[in-house]
Every structure is written in structure tokens, then in C-alpha cells.
């Protein structure tokens, strides 16, 4: 079977699962949303107190279990890390702020589009602009440095965290918050979410599908390998929604679930998310998968995403169906400036080091 078709099918499985989870109770056009789900988990743990978005999403636990297990079985699991962890933390932090101003990670963006939400098109436009900006830094020599081997236990941290989250989900001690209304109260059954999440984790670990990587490769090296996976998610999700969620399918900009139609800020929010995703080498779902196969740098990124999501609600940065907040607008602008400064500094230093090396070779 050709690689393209294989990637399309892998992507299609993700799109299908997105539609199934929507059918079985997840919030509108949010069969899967990695940014929202970390936000819900942050809320459940009490890191923010936005009462309508608090729940330990079993899908995230499933992603981690699935990717961890398949990576161990297939020999991909390797404990590694040490590549600019603090920078990654803040890139993850700002990535999710951009995503929560738009209201969705890039994966939910595709699923929103697959259920007729045309605001996803403006979001996608912003995401592509962000990726294009990020790619310019890659061309100039941007790198966060090489990761190195870490103690084995480092690689097991994320899977252990996932086990802890699962226990908290099942036991639900009194210090854990679950929404009684709003998106946080809309949930597919735990076991279904967990199992389908595991399948997503396995498929994404095997296929390496990443929304940022796909568009980056199209822009940077004109390669469509991963893009076929993205297309698979969109096409199959669209078809599955027509069959499974026909009542929820609605084409247009206005009145879409957990979305707003502020075009400008949908674009600018996703510009920030796009830049951060390229600078991190992957979108939130990809970071989750990498974190599950022993990559501590991706683990730090996931923590940055979770903390960023908590701040987004504590500081009133996250949008709502009512629209974008002023705080959110300011935060996105600050975010874009901060990540551009980070990228510029890294590139400048990398080129300096390269020129010095060239000089020393010349003089040798």
C-alpha cells in the first residue's frame, strides 16, 4: 500500500474517533481537543476555577497509555531530554493561550472544520501564517539544541502521571473538581474515551501525524507525506459527522458550539499557536505522544500547556462563545512578541556559533 493512502487511513481513524466521541457526549465539535482537554484537567486539579471547564479527560490518559505501550513494544521508547526545557515550557504556555483565544488546538480546528464550523478556516489561515513565520526561523538555523539520554525513570514520569490521573478520575476525591454544567460536564463514557484515546495514541505514535509538521513540510520542503494524514482526519471526520452527528452538523460562522466568530482574533490567536508549534517541533497532540515515548522535553511542553491553560482562565484570557476578551488580545500580542524574541535570539546565537566554527576551520 502506498504511503499516502496509509497516512490517509491513519488520519481517517483519528477523524472517525473524533466523530464517535462527539456522538457519545463530548462537547460540540470537540470530539478531541488537546488544548481544551489539558485545560479541563488543569481545572479538575483546581489550577483554575472556571467551573464550566473542569474534568479529567480520559482521552488524554488514553493518548499517553497508547503511545507509551506501542513505543515500548516497538522499541521506540527512549528516555531523553535536556533540549532547552525552560524555553519549551514557555512556548507551550503561549501556544495554548493562542489556542484558547481561538478556542481549540490545531486538531480541534480540523474537527471543527469537519463539522461545518467555517471559523476554522480563518483559524487555519492564522495557523498557516504562524507556521510560515516559524519556518523562516528554521531556515535561518533555529534549533533548541540536541536532547541527550536521561535516567530511565524520567521517561516513565508521564505514563505514571497518566496512571495517577486515571486513579483520580475513578476515585474522584473531594479536592478534584468536575463541572456540573458547560463543556466540562459534557463527556463520552469513561471507558469509551479511554479505549478510543489509546487507539489515537497508538495511531499517532506509529504514523507521527502532526498538524504543525504536516504544514511545515509542505511549506519548507514541499513534501506531502504528513499532509495526507491531515486530509484523512478532515475527510473521514466530515463523512462520519454526516452519518453519526447529522443533527449537530451546521455549516456557517455564527452560532457554532464552543466557538466565536471574531475573525481577526481567530487568525491572530492561531498565528501564535502556529509559531509556537513550529518552534517546538510539533503541535499539542504530537507533544503528548512524544512525552509518552520518553521525551522529557515534550513532557515539559505538556506542563507548559497545562499551566498556560490554567493561567488563560485565571487571567481571563480564554475566549468564550461570547467572544474574545481584552485580556486575551493583550496576552496574544505579548505572546507573539515573546516567542519572536526567543526565536530571534536562538537564531542569532546559532549563526554566531556556526560562523565561529567556519572561521576556526579556515584558520586550521
Amino acid at each position, binding site marked *: 500500500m502506498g504511503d499516502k493512502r*496509509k497516512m490517509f487511513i491513519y488520519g481517517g481513524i483519528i477523524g472517525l474517533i473524533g466523530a464517535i466521541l462527539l456522538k457519545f457526549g463530548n462537547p460540540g465539535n470537540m470530539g478531541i481537543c488537546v488544548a481544551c482537554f489539558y485545560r479541563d484537567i488543569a481545572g479538575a486539579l483546581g489550577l483554575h476555577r472556571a467551573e464550566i471547564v473542569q474534568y479529567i479527560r480520559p482521552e488524554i490518559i488514553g493518548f499517553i497509555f497508547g503511545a507509551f505501550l506501542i513505543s515500548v513494544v516497538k522499541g521506540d521508547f527512549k528516555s531523553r531530554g535536556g533540549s532547552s526545557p525552560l524555553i519549551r515550557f514557555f512556548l507551550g504556555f503561549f501556544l495554548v493561550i493562542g489556542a484558547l483565544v481561538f478556542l481549540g488546538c490545531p486538531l480541534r480546528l480540523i474537527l471543527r472544520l469537519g463539522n461545518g464550523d467555517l471559523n476554522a478556516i480563518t483559524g487555519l489561515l492564522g495557523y498557516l501564517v504562524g507556521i510560515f513565520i516559524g519556518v523562516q526561523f*528554521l531556515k535561518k538555523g533555529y534549533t533548541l539544541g*540536541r536532547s541527550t539520554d536521561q535516567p530511565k525513570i524520567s521517561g516513565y514520569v508521564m505514563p505514571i502521571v497518566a496512571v495517577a490521573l486515571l486513579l483520580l478520575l475513578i476515585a474522584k476525591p473531594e479536592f478534584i473538581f468536575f463541572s456540573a454544567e458547560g463543556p466540562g460536564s459534557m463527556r463520552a463514557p469513561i471507558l469509551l474515551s479511554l479505549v478510543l484515546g489509546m487507539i489515537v495514541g497508538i495511531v499517532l505514535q506509529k504514523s507521527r501525524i*502532526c498538524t504543525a509538521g504536516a504544514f511545515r513540510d509542505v511549506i*519548507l520542503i514541499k513534501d506531502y507525506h504528513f499532509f495526507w494524514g491531515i486530509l484523512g482526519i478532515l475527510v473521514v471526520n466530515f463523512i462520519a459527522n454526516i452519518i453519526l452527528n447529522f443533527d449537530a452538523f451546521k455549516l456557517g460562522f455564527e452560532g457554532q458550539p464552543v466557538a466565536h466568530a471574531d475573525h481577526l482574533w481567530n487568525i491572530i490567536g492561531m498565528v501564535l499557536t502556529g509559531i509556537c508549534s513550529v518552534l517546538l517541533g510539533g503541535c499539542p497532540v504530537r507533544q503528548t505522544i512524544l512525552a509518552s515515548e520518553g521525551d522529557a522535553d515534550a513532557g515539559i511542553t505538556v506542563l507548559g500547556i497545562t499551566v498556560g491553560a490554567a493561567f488563560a482562565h485565571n487571567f481571563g484570557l480564554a475566549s468564550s462563545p461570547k467572544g474574545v476578551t481584552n485580556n486575551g488580545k493583550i496576552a496574544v500580542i505579548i505572546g507573539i512578541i515573546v516567542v519572536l524574541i526567543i526565536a530571534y535570539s536562538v537564531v542569532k546565537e546559532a549563526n554566531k556559533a556556526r560562523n565561529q566554527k*567556519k572561521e576556526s576551520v579556515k584558520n586550521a
Partner: protein
Amino acid sequence: MEDTYCVVTFQVTQHALIFEKAMKNMKYAVKLMPVPRQVSSSCGTAAKIPCEKKKEILNLCEKENLPIEGFYKIDHKKKKSWF
């Protein structure tokens, strides 16, 4: 896609672009692509090159100080496993 081909991997994306330019200058057939799944579970950029030019290319990289990470021969088996 052919059954067997070779790829060069890089630590930094920019190195792949520099490498591609150098290969094009030498008129070698080169194509940038995602790192093959067989090599890594990461999703960086690699350069596909003809295996028979391995020696010349590695010599050139050393001479021109082109930073590369690894050189791999990929057996693209016809009967592929999904898992």
C-alpha cells in the same frame, strides 16, 4: 517509491537545506523528505540521496564542513507491517 534508498539525517533543519544546496551544486539527485519511520519516531527533515554516491557525499561533507548527523540505508519492504 523504490525498495532501497539512502538518507542523510541532520541535527538542525537548516543543515538539511544547506546540504540540499551543496548536493544540487554537485548535480547529485537529492530530495528532502521527512525522516523515514524506520530511522526514527521523530519527524524531522532528512535528505534522500543515491546510495552509490555515499563515499563521495561523505567526503564532500567533510571537506566542505557540512554538518550531518547520520547516514542510513532504507529497505522499503514491499510487504509492510502496519504495526
